[in-house]
């Protein structure tokens, strides 16, 4: 039951090998790949930022919840940070179990919770040179000269 943040390329086979257990007959794994677009906008790269300590703490909590809720043998998750190219693996989740139902349910639970709860942010770089933090209303660009534009409007 390990969660990790990694600045290096994720290696699914090594991670999956750690889920092996003699009683495990099923292993379900999920990979999140960097797509070439989002909402119709062409994307050239993704940048992930995290608060590693709190992300690991919350990630391990999610894995423990999955173990309590579903009859699984082992589960693990690794999330990348830094600059990723199209097609690279941004997140890997794996769960092994005696029977496949629990492995599917646990894997899905883990990725759903990881996406919602962990302090991880994703910046998209677009073909036109612009960039934006996904899900954020606050613009990526700094406020000019540290003056808040919002404060200047009457």
């Amino acid at each position, binding site marked *: 039951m390990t969660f990790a943040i990694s600045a290096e390329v994720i290696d699914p086979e090594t991670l999956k090998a750690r889920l092996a257990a003699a009683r495990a007959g099923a292993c379900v794994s999920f990979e999140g790949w960097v797509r070439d677009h989002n909402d119709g906008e062409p994307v050239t790269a993704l940048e992930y930022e995290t608060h590693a300590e709190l992300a690991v703490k919350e990630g391990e909590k999610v894995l423990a919840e999955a173990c309590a809720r579903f009859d699984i043998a082992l589960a693990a998750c690794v999330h990348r940070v830094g600059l990723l190219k199209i097609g690279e693996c941004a997140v890997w989740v794996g769960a092994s179990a005696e029977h496949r139902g629990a492995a599917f349910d646990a894997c899905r639970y883990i990725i759903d919770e990881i996406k919602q709860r962990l302090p991880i*942010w994703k910046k998209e770089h677009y073909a036109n040179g612009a960039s934006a933090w996904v899900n954020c209303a606050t613009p990526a660009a*700094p406020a000019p000269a540290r003056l808040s534009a*919002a404060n200047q409007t009457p």
Partner: protein
Amino acid sequence: MVEVTAQYFAAFRERAGCERERLATRSSTAQELYAELADRHGFLDAAARCKVAINGEMARWDTRLASGDTVLFFPPVAGG
């Protein structure tokens, strides 16, 4: 007045133009401090969609601030 350190991540860091700042504030809760800083820096995300951590632990928005606290402001997350 309490003296706290505010720490910013991702969009908030870029928007504020700094990673952290020390400040004296009349805000009594994390949520009030967020409103104050959002106003100052132009953070546009509702607190309900953001998260806050105090002294290294995830915290509730209604947590009362004490002098010396480090308050981490997390914009809406987007893992995966």
